[in-house]
């Protein structure tokens, strides 16, 4: 009897002690310390199957770490409004295009990460603020010496690879197809592929057909260079209007409508206009047109040009061939980002229209037919059916084809069928892996690839918990299965991304930075080292009395 009762006492004691220990465990994991749920916004599957699938995979890995994840597919207009403008997001993915003006990484490094750009509607979507980063970013922008700028760019990439406010996930491999039976010498420019101006100026006919039929999803909208918004319109306008300078496929700005340009000091640039250029209506291109273009854009606050010419103080005509640009502060990317983007407008047409329509009306003007001085002239446009450009023979660098017919399709499926059936000769739409398989077999088509200079970027919101803590951000980023996404979602047609400046952009890309991704173990380690705790269900809790750490320090 006594042995049994002693056993009972010991048993009771054991139960009591374990209960108290258990309760202690529970009481320290209070609800307040629980890390808040993360809502990951993804696009719908039809809009972009890549962001959809990648989002699901990322969410799954984050759940493995113990975070509560809610995945919400959202329509693009809503997502861009709430996220990019409203900053209401927790995390979502944007696919940033690799345009020519983004080769100088001013956009990636300054505009997207400087603390002055965190307001509603600006590009620092994550809300990243670091005084150290700001200091180096300003040096990057103001210094005219390319090597010094590169040093700054390297340092900036390194900081970002530790702080991870909006980590890149992958750079896709842009794949375009074209009819190699009838055309050759196509050019795949970094990021733009066959949409690039250099493709149009180089593509050569092999046989009798000298007009390229080009397919794209959706029609052009507005051929007004002041207020156009869509990427597709901009590609077309760059064929019709000539800028003073163009960025070549290596990323270097070369003189174009200007015969030469000279960076006199860090706030003054002078250009000498090429002689003998004509607009498509026969009138000569003069320095008055150049001055007019920039002054006019500033006066009517032309949306497309506005951010580019913000740094411009004044434009002066020095003599009948020279124009001087004076900036209000040193801005190294002015030549590649402003002079290379602003197409010269014919003053004799726009001045008259401006008198007629006023500042607001001129932004709404459909500008048909658009008259520029570029190598392609506008012929006709039947909305939603086709748009034709013909070669401008009097151009100083005429095209080798006689013209381009742009045919809009309703969906990527239509574009692929058009390529297959021979209705179009090439398409500026990057093919998805399944479509590549389908077109590889087609005899008259050749596929060409180029690494994208743009990237898929995951934007955290540092204004909200838990993304305000650098340890959480680092852990979440390490958990992203970048290699798996490249293999399964892109089917190998991409490169995992670690720096916001793509590897293909070889001058500016820093290869020696921290490479966060594909390592759930390391992610867990980071959280454990910082003191995070998990309950027995696996949900993650903050450490006791935790002070949120905003930035990474060694």
């Amino acid at each position, binding site marked *: 009897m006594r042995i049994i009762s002693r056993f009972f006492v010991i048993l009771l004691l054991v139960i009591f002690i374990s209960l108290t220990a258990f309760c202690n465990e529970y009481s320290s994991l209070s609800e307040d310390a629980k890390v808040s749920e993360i809502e990951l916004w993804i696009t719908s599957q039809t809009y972009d199957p890549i962001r959809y699938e990648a989002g699901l995979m990322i969410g799954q890995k984050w759940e493995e770490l113990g975070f509560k994840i809610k995945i919400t597919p959202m329509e693009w207009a809503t997502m861009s409004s709430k996220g*990019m403008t409203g900053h209401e997001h927790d995390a979502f993915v944007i696919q940033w295009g690799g345009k020519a003006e983004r080769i100088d990484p001013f956009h990636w490094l300054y505009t997207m990460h400087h603390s002055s750009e965190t307001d509603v509607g600006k590009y620092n979507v994550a809300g990243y603020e670091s005084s150290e980063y700001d200091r180096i970013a300003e040096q990057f922008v103001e210094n005219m010496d390319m090597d010094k700028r590169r040093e700054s760019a390297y340092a900036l990439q390194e900081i970002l690879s530790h702080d991870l406010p909006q980590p890149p996930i992958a750079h896709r491999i842009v794949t375009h197809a074209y009819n190699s039976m009838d055309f050759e010498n196509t050019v795949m420019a970094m990021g733009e592929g066959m949409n690039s101006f250099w493709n149009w100026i180089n593509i050569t006919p092999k046989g009798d057909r000298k007009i390229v039929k080009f397919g794209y999803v959706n029609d052009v909208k507005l051929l007004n260079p002041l207020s156009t918004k*869509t*990427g597709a319109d901009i590609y077309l306008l760059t064929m019709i209007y000539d800028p003073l300078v163009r960025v070549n496929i290596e990323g270097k700005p070369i003189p174009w409508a200007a015969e030469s340009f000279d960076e006199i000091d860090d706030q003054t640039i002078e250009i000498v206009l090429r002689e003998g250029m004509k607009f498509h209506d026969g009138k000569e291109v003069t320095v008055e047109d150049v001055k007019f273009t920039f002054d006019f854009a500033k006066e009517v606050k032309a949306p497309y040009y506005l951010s580019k010419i913000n740094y411009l103080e004044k434009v002066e005509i020095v003599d009948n061939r020279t124009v001087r640009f004076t900036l209000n502060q040193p801005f190294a990317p002015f030549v590649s980002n402003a002079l290379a983007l602003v197409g010269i407008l014919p003053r004799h047409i726009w001045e008259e229209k401006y008198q007629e329509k006023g500042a607001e009306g001129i932004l709404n003007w459909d500008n048909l037919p658009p008259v520029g001085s570029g190598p392609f002239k506008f012929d006709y446009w039947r909305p939603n059916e086709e748009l034709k450009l013909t070669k401008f023979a009097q151009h100083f660098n005429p095209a080798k084809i006689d013209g381009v017919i742009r045919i809009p399709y309703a969906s990527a499926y239509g574009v692929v069928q058009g390529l297959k*059936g021979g209705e179009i000769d090439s398409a500026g739409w990057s093919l998805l892996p399944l479509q590549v398989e389908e077109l590889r077999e087609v005899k008259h088509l050749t596929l060409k690839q180029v690494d994208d200079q743009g990237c898929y970027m995951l934007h955290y919101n540092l204004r909200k918990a838990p993304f305000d803590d650098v340890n959480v951000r680092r852990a979440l980023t390490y958990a992203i299965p970048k290699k798996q996404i490249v293999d399964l979602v892109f089917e190998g047609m991409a490169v995992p991304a670690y720096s916001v400046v793509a590897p293909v952009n070889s001058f500016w890309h820093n290869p020696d930075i921290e490479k966060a991704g594909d390592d759930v173990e390391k992610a867990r380690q980071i959280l454990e080292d910082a003191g995070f705790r998990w309950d027995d269900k696996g949900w993650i809790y903050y450490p006791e009395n935790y002070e949120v750490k905003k930035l990474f320090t060694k």
Partner: protein
Amino acid sequence: MQGILKYVIRRLLQMLLTLFVLITILFFMFRVIPGDPVSMYIEAGLGQEAQQVLLKQYGLDKPLFQQYIIYIKAVFKGDFGISFQYGKPAIQVIGERFWNTLILMITSLSIAFLLGIVGGAILAWKRGTVLESVGIIGALILRCAPVFWTGMIFLSIFAFKFKIFPLGGMNTPGTYFDFQYQKFLSLDFLKHLTLPALTASLYSVATPLLVMRTSMLEVIKEDFIELARAKGLKEWKILFKHAMRNALLPVITVFAVQAGLAIGGIVLVETVFRWPGMGREIVLAVAARDYPVAQTAFFLIGTMTVLFNIIADVLYAYLDPRVTWQ
């Protein structure tokens, strides 16, 4: 005739009230749903200052009610606003594409109703036979199959495999026309019209077919049909001259209603066949939050639906002497 006139005027006044309510609902609906016409261009390079310029240009910087007053005043003057995407008046954007859709719609509806009326009559006449079962099931299959799937099947057979018809579009790329109306007057256009019209018409044939069949079955039971048979008239003459004419009434009503709704269904056909029509434009306008174009397009559809309903009622009453005006 006095009765008809009063009736029509009353219906038209009702229509105006309906349309006013419609415009108001459309206006507020588009501005209340999340998303705006500017944010989607940020990725392409539209900076913050530029966004503000555009919002001001679109009139979206003003308080909601003030925007509404401005809008209603303009609509009464016939100004439906300027498209955010295209910079052209919304009416012009729709007008450029409206005729393309209209021609496709009229062609496909005509074929559908022709086949439906004749087919429905024959099926009713041949009640109980295998032909009837096959006919009904066939029509239902075509109705249940997604219209874009049917379209893609036609494309892969007739356009890709046998290369009889083109892959899509309204005209062969590269053709130039001096005047817009000329693009409708060529053999090339007819070739391009065939597959999309066929797809759309086969999709919508089930409705008139089944309505006609039901109506015919009722008519066949009538005494005057028995009388005609007793008179010794040929079967085909009884079918077409006597039975069908009387059975046609419900089908006319259905035609009017279906015509009003047809624009919505044509979107998928336009997408598959790259037909430059209004249907697709509406989808794009909503996705781009191009309020003027979207509102105007929906308003147009609403107007057409109401108008066609009035026409249906008037026609029905005109054709059927048994119906009186109230």
